[in-house]
């Protein structure tokens, strides 16, 4: 079969036009979710707004209880490759450039911003915010483009660089992420939905003086709301206007 030039170009144009238009069309209407269907796990009670407060005066420099608990709880692997290791939470040491204040050690994790830039840039909406403010990644929808890592000003996200097998002590409540997707702190969403605090907060209470407080800032009676009212706190890079929900006291 031979095709003349006109057909080749016409066909090419038609294919390109199809590619341009196809994303906007639905061939078959998706079935509507029945009203009695189980609630989407991505949904949450809108009345809540989860946040964290970290009292750096109580955070010991050599303590990594939160980091270790997070690794255990969320099956976060350590590859032994510092440039590619995954951290959902890490201990950061701050040194005042003016040398007026003593060094401070504090944990840094995803700030679950109210205006999350990672959610803005994600092409497939794999990164999304729940109504209670928890920012999550749908690992099945993530294509591994890494634009969210570029957009996050807190370095809260990691790409899974290595293929690994789940360890023997895997926590089955948290699914393992495949190589090639981006992952980050979920505020231990599987725990908070069951009324438990995130693993890092629980571990901090046990190991140290309880430097981390977690709670609902929409509840004026909650401990975190009370502390935010009375204590002098700050967030990371408030100038960016992202409204992060991890607050620090004592910096």
């Amino acid at each position, binding site marked *: 079969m031979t095709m003349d*030039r*006109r057909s*080749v*170009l016409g066909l090419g*144009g038609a294919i*390109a036009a199809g*590619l*341009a238009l*196809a*994303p906007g069309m639905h061939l078959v209407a998706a079935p509507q979710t029945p009203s009695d269907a189980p609630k989407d796990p991505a949904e949450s009670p809108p009345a809540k707004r989860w946040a964290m407060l970290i009292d750096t005066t109580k955070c010991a420099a050599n303590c990594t209880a939160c980091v270790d608990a997070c690794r255990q709880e969320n099956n976060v692997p350590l*590859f032994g*490759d*510092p*440039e*590619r*290791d995954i*951290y959902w939470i*890490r*201990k*950061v*040491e*701050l*040194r*005042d*450039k003016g040398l007026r204040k003593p060094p*401070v050690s504090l944990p*840094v994790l995803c700030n679950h911003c109210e205006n999350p*830039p990672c*959610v*803005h*840039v*994600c*092409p*497939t*909406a794999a990164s999304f915010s729940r109504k209670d403010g928890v920012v999550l990644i749908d690992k099945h*929808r*993530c*294509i*591994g*483009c*890494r*634009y969210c890592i*570029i*957009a996050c*000003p*807190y*370095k809260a996200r990691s*790409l*899974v*660089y290595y*293929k690994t097998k789940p360890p023997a002590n895997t926590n089955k409540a948290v699914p393992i992420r*495949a*190589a*090639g*997707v981006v992952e980050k702190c979920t505020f231990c969403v599987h725990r908070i939905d069951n009324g438990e605090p995130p693993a890092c907060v629980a571990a901090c209470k046990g190991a140290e003086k309880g430097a981390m407080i977690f709670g609902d800032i929409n509840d004026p009676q909650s401990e975190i709301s009370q502390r935010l009212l009375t204590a002098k706190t700050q967030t*990371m*890079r408030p*100038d*960016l206007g992202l409204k992060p929900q991890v607050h620090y006291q004592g*910096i």
Partner: protein
Amino acid sequence: MLSEYSVIEGRSRHFFKVLGGLVLLVLLGAGAFFFVEHHGHAVTGMNNQIVWGLPHIFAISLLVMASGALNMGSMSTVFAVKQFEQFGRFSAFLSIALLAGGLTVLMLDLGRPDNMLLPMVYMNFRSMFTWNVFLYTGFATLCLLYLWTMFEYKQYKKFIGTAAFGWRLVLTTGTGSIFGVIQGREVFGSAITAPTFVAASLTSGTALGILLLVYAYRHTDRFLDDRLIFGMRNALIFFMMLFAYLLVVEKFTRFYDPASYDVQIWILTGSWAWLYWGGVWGVGVIIPLMLLFNHTTGNRVGSITLASAFVVAGVFCFVGHVLLAGQAYPLDLFPGYAVSSPFLDGVVGSYTPTLPELFLGLGGVGISGLIFLLGVRFLRMLPKRGVAPDGWELPWNP
């Protein structure tokens, strides 16, 4: 004035050498893709600080050049410089070929390339990437329609050609905005990034056009009037000066702000400064401008071609510098404080590309080259003679 178009014969030894070379590049790219896909991105030089590496530099450079390659077509269709009308087909087809190569690399460097069609299914309309998906497919459509009107329906050529010209400006604005809209990183987040990308596209597209035209005509023993290349040289000089101007304005604006001193001094003297000074300025601007402004070399097709090669390499360095320096500079988590952590906070990111990344990027070049070569072989893209009208004199020569 216009002569007839014809396909290239494609029987010479040279043709098959080039064809073989391009096929080899595509095979290397395919091999690299499967290697990275099998082992994970750990076999690349990328890490959690530099998450976009050499494949992205290749991909974005090809996309920038794709919109730039339309210059010759736009010059005749939109700006009525009739001497270049004969290269309109060549120009639009080159755009499509470069776009295909760039997009392929971009897709194959995904962490989950098996999910590459998901952006077509689930769309986040706030994402710059999603906008770019529409910009790329729209541009390819317009280029094909443009090509079609040049072959058959000449009465629509002006309309479609003008639309394609407008679209390519928006397209490259979109490409530059991938970095321009990022406010969280000190090096990115500038409104001038997108216009600089447009200037880079005009520059590199013209340079690549000169390179390929001279190459194609020399190796097929066709006549190409030197004055046409001199005309393109003048356009190239203008675009390069626009590019250099935007680079200078960006640095001037940033340096005016005391809060940016640290990061800007790092850019000019830090770990990627060699790429900025040597690659962007040296290779991309100063050496080619010296060649083009010189009375002897500026009036010789050979040295204009050499300058064009420098320009293409320089724009590649520009894209590389934007990406790598932008990611390498550590995030300022707590302004006023020096930070350190096992996650390498506060440390300038390091990146050494590996061979699979190079091969994947070159695979994209191979795809573009192959499409282009087969295009000129089987479709009548090139005029038999590249002629300029009698008595046509350029207003300026070096």
